[in-house]
C-alpha cells in the first residue's frame, strides 16, 4: 500500500479507499455475495429481502444462516437466535476497529454508521492502511471510500447471484451456491491463530452433526459447543506450555 503520491485531502483518500477495494478484496466479496444471492433465491425469499439482508445485516454468516434456516422452515425464535449468535463477531470487530478510526476517545454519531458498514474484510484492510496513514481524518476518509465500494459490490453481487441462479443451467447455478461456503472456509483458514483454526475444525464436525440431531437448534448448540471446546483446549495448552 503506497500513499506517498496521494493528495492529503479527504476526497483523495476516499477515492484511494475505493480503488483499493476494487481488487482482490472486492472480487472476493462480489463472488461471496453472488453465492449468497444464489442461496437466497433457492431458499424462496424475494430479491428485495436478499438485498435487505446484505445492506441491513452486512455479515455473511448471519445472512447464510437466515436463508438456510428459513428454507428449512425453522421457527422464528430459533432463526433469530441463530442469526444473532452467528453475527456475534461484529461485537469484538467493532471494538477492535473504532480506536483506529476515531479522533479522540468517546462516542460520536458517525461511529454508529462506521460500525454498520464495517466488516472483517474492511477491518483487515484498515489495519494495513493504519501502518501507512496516521492522520485520523484521512483514515476515516479511506475507510468510508473502501466500505462504500465494498457495500456497492456486495449489493451488486447479491442481485447478480440471485438473478443468475434462475437463468443458468442447473450445474452452473449449483456451482454459484457453492462459492460462499468455500469462500468463508478459506477466509477462516487464512487466520494464523491456533484457537481460530481449532474452532474451524471442530465447528466443521460438530455443526453438521448438531444439524442432524436438531434442525432448529443444531447450528447454535453445535457452534457454541465447538467454539467453547476450542477455546478451552487452547487455554489448557497455553497453561501447560
Amino acid at each position: 500500500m503506497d500513499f506517498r503520491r496521494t493528495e492529503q485531502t479527504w476526497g483523495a483518500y476516499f477515492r484511494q479507499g475505493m480503488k483499493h477495494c476494487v481488487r482482490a478484496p472486492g472480487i472476493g466479496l462480489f463472488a461471496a455475495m453472488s453465492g449468497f444471492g444464489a442461496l437466497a433465491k433457492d431458499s424462496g425469499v424475494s430479491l428485495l429481502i436478499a438485498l435487505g439482508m446484505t445492506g441491513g445485516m452486512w455479515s455473511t454468516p448471519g445472512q447464510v444462516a437466515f436463508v438456510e434456516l428459513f428454507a428449512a422452515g425453522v421457527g422464528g425464535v430459533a432463526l433469530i437466535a441463530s442469526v444473532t449468535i452467528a453475527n456475534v463477531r461484529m461485537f469484538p470487530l467493532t471494538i477492535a476497529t473504532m480506536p483506529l478510526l476515531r479522533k479522540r476517545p468517546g462516542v460520536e454519531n458517525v461511529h454508529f454508521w462506521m460500525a454498520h458498514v464495517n466488516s472483517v474484510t474492511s477491518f483487515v484492510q484498515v489495519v494495513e492502511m493504519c501502518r501507512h496513514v496516521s492522520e485520523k481524518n484521512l483514515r476515516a476518509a479511506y475507510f468510508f471510500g473502501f466500505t462504500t465500494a465494498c457495500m456497492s459490490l456486495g449489493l451488486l453481487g447479491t442481485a447478480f447471484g440471485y438473478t443468475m441462479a434462475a437463468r443458468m443451467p442447473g450445474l452452473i447455478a449449483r456451482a454459484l451456491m457453492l462459492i460462499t461456503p468455500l469462500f468463508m472456509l478459506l477466509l477462516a483458514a487464512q487466520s494464523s491463530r491456533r484457537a481460530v483454526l481449532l474452532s474451524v475444525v471442530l465447528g466443521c464436525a460438530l455443526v453438521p452433526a448438531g444439524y442432524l440431531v436438531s434442525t432448529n437448534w443444531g447450528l447454535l448448540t453445535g457452534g457454541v459447543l465447538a467454539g467453547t471446546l476450542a477455546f478451552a483446549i487452547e487455554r489448557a495448552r497455553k497453561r501447560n506450555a
Partner: protein
Amino acid sequence: MPDAAILLGIAVVCTYSWRWMGVLIAGRIEDDSPVFEWVTCVAYAIATGLMMKIILLPGGALAESHLTDRLAGLAVCVGVFYGSRKNLLAGLAAGVCAFILFPGLRSLLF
C-alpha cells in the same frame, strides 16, 4: 412474503445491536481479553460449521448434486489454497471449477 420481511427486520436490529454495543464499549475494554477470545472461537465455529453443513447436507437445488462432487470441489479448493501460499481467489476458482468438471470426470471413470 411479509413473514420473511418481519424476520429480516428483527434480524437486522439484533445484528446491529452487536455493533452498537461495540461502539459504546470500544476503548473501555481490551480487545484481547479471554472473553473476546471465546467469542471469536464461537463465531468462527458457527460460521465455518454452517458452511460445512451446506457442503455436506445441503437443502434445495444444491442437494441435487452428488456428495462426491461437492467434496471434490472442497478438496481441490483447500489443496490449491495451501499450494498457492494461501491465495484465496485461486483456491476459490479452482474449487468451483473442480465442482463443475467432476461430474463429467466421474462418469468417465466409473
